[in-house]
Each structure stands twice: as C-alpha cells, then as structure tokens.
C-alpha cells in the first residue's frame, strides 16, 4: 500500500519522514504546479473552492506516480471541507483510478488520529502511536517557527534571496530531526542560521497581518507566494493563522501557548458573536488584535466562494470603517492573475507607508 495525503503547507514535511520510519509507504504528491491546478479544475464541480481543486490535482498526480491509497481528513461541517473526500473519491473513481480511500472523520479528536496512525503503520502499541503523533505535531511547530523567523528576516535582508535559501535549509534540517532529542537540538541551530543573514538593522518595515482561510494562507502555491512578495516589498508579515496553532487548539501539545480560537472568540465579541465555521472567528478576532497592537494593516485572503470567510470579510470591512483601519480582502481561485495581485499589493503597501509618514490621515 503506497499512501498519499494531499498537501497542506508544510504539513507533509512534518509527517512523511516519521511515518516512513514506522513502515508506512508514503508517496507524497509532487509539489503543486499549474498542471496540478488544471487537473483539479478540469474535474471539480464548478463552484468548489480552490483547496478542493488543488487537493484533487494532488491526488491525481500522486496516483499517477504509483500511490494506491489516499488518506483525506474529513469532519462534520459547517465548512465544506468535511465533504471533500467523498466528492473527490467519486470523481477519481469515475476517472477509472483504482485505490483505497480512507477518511478520518474526526480529525480534531485525538483517539481518531491515534487509531489512524495504528491503522496505516506497523505501530500496534497505543503509547507508541501517541509518541509518534506528538512528534509530528512538534515538528510542525518547529517548521512554523522557522517560517515566523523567515517573516522577520525577509524584509530586512540586504542580499536579495538570502533568506529564502536559509528557510529552505531550515526546513531541510528540521526534516532530518526525526526524534524528540534531535528536534530540540536542531532548533538553536535553525535560529543561528537565520541570525547569520545580513540584515538592515535600522529598517522599520511596514507590518501587515496576513489572515484568512488556513489553506490559502499557509500554502504558497495557492496564494501565489504572497508572503514572499510582501517580503520583497520590504513588508514584514505577521501571520495570524498557523497550522501548529490549529493543531495546538485541538491537541494541546504546547501547554503554555494560549488557545488561539478561544482567544479570537473573546476578541471578536461584538463583531462576530459566534464562529461561522472555518477561520472566520480568527480572521475577525485577529484583525481587531492587529489594530490594537499597531500592525499597519491587514491582508485578508480567501478562496473564491469560501462560505465562512465571506462572513468574516464583510465583518472586517465594517471594522475597517469603524476604526479607520486599512484592510484588504483578496480572493483566490484558478483565474487569479499574478500581475493583478502584485498591483493591488503595491497600492496597499503604498497606502500603509503614506499613513505611517502622516501624508494621509484617513484611510
């Protein structure tokens, strides 16, 4: 059984090596390209959201490369994500693919995840499964830590592209750390290589909070590498949604990190009084947090027809008007053009810079 799981940001880096060591024959899909997207778009329902289409393309490419089993997380709403696996399986079967499909229907329940690990790997002992699962979570947190460092160093770098190479190296060394001990020993080294990047220490870059639907935020292919683009415009990204936070809210593997969903819910009160699924509550709560903390503006990104984020986008527009705070909502789908995104980002960053210099007073 060659198992494949669709990509979601750096998640596959976190689990592939660990699971392989425990006898899972992993076949991660090739990194998404325009071909992946075209495959997905061709066979998806017209108004399915972008993550669905990219995931479907991932699955098709992995099956073409020899995988014969797919693991797709599920769930029970209200967002469409929980139903992805069913529709995707139906489409793939119709196309004539032969494979085994398994869905974990409660991806936020620890026991379900442990059972899944025992199901796909050689591990039989429940304790070992826990240990492996938490190692994967810790590796994810480490990868996110490296990405956060990247956000800090990228706008300040003196030699263009140096930070990108460092991030790549950081991901490589974290990937090699396949036990708790190695992981703890690796992290200081990761910080060190970032500190070696030549930076302009005097620069006070414009800061932008990047919020929105989690897949589009963390998957550079889906958002046209927007964080790198912002970095190149000398903008410091303050990302508000992290995969490790999402996991931590459910599995509490970092006991001293605050539950971000609960925190956002508290912050959002008055604007969004009940989470409307997906990351809507994080988007609203953290927009308010960004404003409070003096982040210069918020960039809200979401897939076209995303139901929860549409609610959030309407609400943060109101916040923007009420509090005179710059907010830009960008929608991503297969038709989005890079030039369009760059132009709008440049205009937005210009606006933030001028506001900071005091040359315009109101947004």
């Amino acid at each position: 059984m060659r198992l494949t799981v669709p990509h979601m940001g750096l998640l596959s880096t976190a689990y592939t090596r660990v699971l392989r060591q425990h006898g899972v024959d992993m076949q991660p899909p090739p990194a998404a390209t325009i071909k992946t997207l075209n495959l997905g778009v061709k066979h998806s329902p017209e108004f399915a959201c972008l993550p669905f289409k990219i995931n479907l393309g991932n699955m098709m490419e992995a099956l073409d490369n020899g995988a014969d089993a797919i693991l797709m997380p599920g769930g029970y709403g209200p967002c469409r994500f929980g139903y992805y696996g069913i529709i995707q399986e139906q489409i793939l079967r119709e196309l004539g693919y032969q494979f085994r499909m398994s869905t974990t229907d409660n991806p936020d329940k620890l026991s379900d995840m442990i059972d899944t690990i025992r199901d796909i790997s050689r591990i039989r002992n429940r304790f070992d499964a826990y240990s492996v699962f938490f190692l994967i979570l810790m590796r994810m947190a480490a990868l996110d830590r490296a990405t956060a460092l990247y956000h800090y160093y990228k706008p300040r770098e003196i030699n263009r592209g140096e930070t990108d190479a460092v991030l790549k190296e950081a991901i490589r060394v974290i990937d090699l750390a396949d036990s708790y001990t190695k992981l703890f020993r690796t992290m200081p080294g990761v910080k060190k290589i970032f500190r070696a990047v030549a930076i302009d220490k005097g620069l006070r870059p414009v800061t932008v909070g990047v919020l929105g639907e989690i897949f589009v935020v963390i998957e550079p292919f889906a958002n046209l590498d927007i964080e790198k683009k912002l970095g190149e415009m000398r903008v410091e990204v303050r990302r508000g949604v992290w995969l490790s936070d999402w996991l931590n809210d459910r599995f509490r593997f970092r006991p001293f990190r605050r539950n971000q969903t609960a925190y956002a819910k508290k912050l959002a009160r008055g604007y969004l009084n009940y989470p409307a699924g997906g990351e809507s509550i994080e988007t609203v709560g953290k927009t308010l947090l960004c404003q409070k903390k003096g982040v210069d503006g918020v960039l809200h990104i979401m897939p076209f027809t995303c139901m929860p984020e549409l609610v959030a986008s309407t609400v943060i527009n109101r916040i923007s008007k009420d509090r005179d705070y710059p907010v830009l909502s960008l929608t991503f789908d297969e038709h989005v053009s890079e030039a369009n995104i760059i132009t709008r980002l440049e205009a937005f960053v210009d606006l933030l810079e001028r506001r900071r210099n005091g040359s315009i007073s109101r947004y």
Partner: protein
Amino acid sequence: MRHLRIGIPRGLLFHCYAESWKLFFRDLGCEVISSPETNADILKEGLRHTVGDLCLPVKTFLGHVAVLKDSVDFLFIPRYISIEQESYMCPKMIGLPDLARACFTHLPRVLDPMFHVKQFGDKAVAEFTRPVAQALSLSSALTAAAYKKNIDHDAEVPAEQHRLSMLLLDKEGSTSPATGRMNIGVVGRPYLLFDRHLSKNLFAFMRKLGGNPVYIRPDAAEIREAMTVIPKWVYWDMGKEVVAAAHTLFKDDRIDGVINVCSSTCGPDSFTGDLIRKRLNQRNKPYMSLSIDEHTSDVGIQTRLEAFVDMIAKVTA
C-alpha cells in the same frame, strides 16, 4: 401602551418558519411586521450593501433588512446553527446577525437568539427563548410556553411547513404528481424556490409550458433512506433535504424529469449538486441544474425550461 414592533425580513429561513415565528411573537403581545415580497428595488438595496461573492439569497435578505430597519423597534434575525444533532446550517446563516450588523450602520436592536441543538441539546429551546425574553422584558417561562405552542422545527411534523410552501406557490397549483401530465420534480432551497422574484416565477412558467411542477419536502424516513444511498451523511440541514427530495423524485415513476435550482455561489449546493447528478440519478432521468444569480434574466431561465420540457417530451414519446 404601544405594542413593540418586531420586523422579520422576508428572506432565507422566513420561507420555512415564518408562520411559527409570527404566531410566537403575536403570543408575546408584539406586532409583527414583515417586509414585502422581493422586488427589483429590494434586491438592488441588498446588492448595494454587500460584497460581491455573497450568494443571492443572502444579498436579498440584507435588502429586506434595509427596507425594514427604519420602521421597527426590533429586527428578528435569529442565529440558526443546528436544528438537529446531525447537521449544521450554512456558515452564512450562522453569521447572519453579524452580517446584518456589519452591512448597516443604523440598525434597530437586533434580536439574535441562537438555536443550537448540537451544543445545547434539550436546552436549545431555553437558550433560544432566554435572549428574546430579556430583550422584550418578559418572563422566560411565558416566552418558552409561547415557543412550545407555536414553533416546531422537527422534520417529523412538516405538515405546517408544507402547507406554507404550497401557499407560497401559486394558489391553484397542485404540488403532487398528476396523471396524464408532464411531472417535473423541482428541488432546491425554499428561500430560492419560493421567492418569486429570485426564481423568476419558475413554477408558473412551467405550468404555462404544460408541465406540472412537483415540490416535496422529504420527511425523516425519506431523508434516512436517501442517506443510505450516498456514502456520507450530508451535514447541512437544507442540503440534506435537497438530496433527499432529489432521491425520492428520481425513484418515483410518475416523475418525468428533475430540475435542481441553486444559487450560483452556494457552497453546499456545489457539492450536493455533484452528488445528485452522479449518485442518485440511477434511472437516468432527464436532469437539469439551474443556477441563479443577480444577473440571471427571466428569458434565460425560460429558454432553458422550454428546452428541458421539449427534451422530456421527446424522451417520453
């Protein structure tokens, strides 16, 4: 003392629960005002205040809010999250009161009680009535009693709601299959189908073409049966009903064809439409999916209906 005036926008769940809501508030001694049927001006008002990607029914709903907001003391925009253990409402409906507050600056007080069976279980009714009682300064026991008397969301007793949807259809119309006529099953969300302006008077036009539109509201048994045919329980309340209705209509020998009416950016329907087309149409009956948005023209819909009716005539002949 003047009665408190409660405004209920004529959109979304209004088309399912309006009668019970009205009775509920009248029992509490309030005057109920609902907005007029959707027309071009209301829709325009809704479009003016919303972002582009929202779906048509939500935009229309906000248009109704705009019409009502200056003439009432309270706006009743309930937050329906789950009306039973196994399903959710669509995220836009979960965020509806917040959407309304975000779109308009000067709203009267919004009455947004939460209905969430999945979280509160048996206490859902108490959770729903408590904020209403507080806002209207009534005793919570009285409010709960009025609720029990008038509101019943259970799928087991759809008679009231069914009657309601027939009323909203053309008065003389039958909604059951008739022999000797072309019976066309229509599935879709009540708030789109029974809003004549949004559905472009679909039912009347179908009759004009000699078809007999059949709309059903599946009962609990039919829903359970439909869910055994598809691999996973559909966890959106209305999506589930659409799927079950389609299943029942496809099975029924008297039905000659099925039309699925959805709004074009509807999230759940983009998936349930795929399920209906691929899984449920086992007898290969004529099937058409009509998606509607604010740019849809009457003529466009009519041409497609004519073509569909012609096709059925050819298939059955």
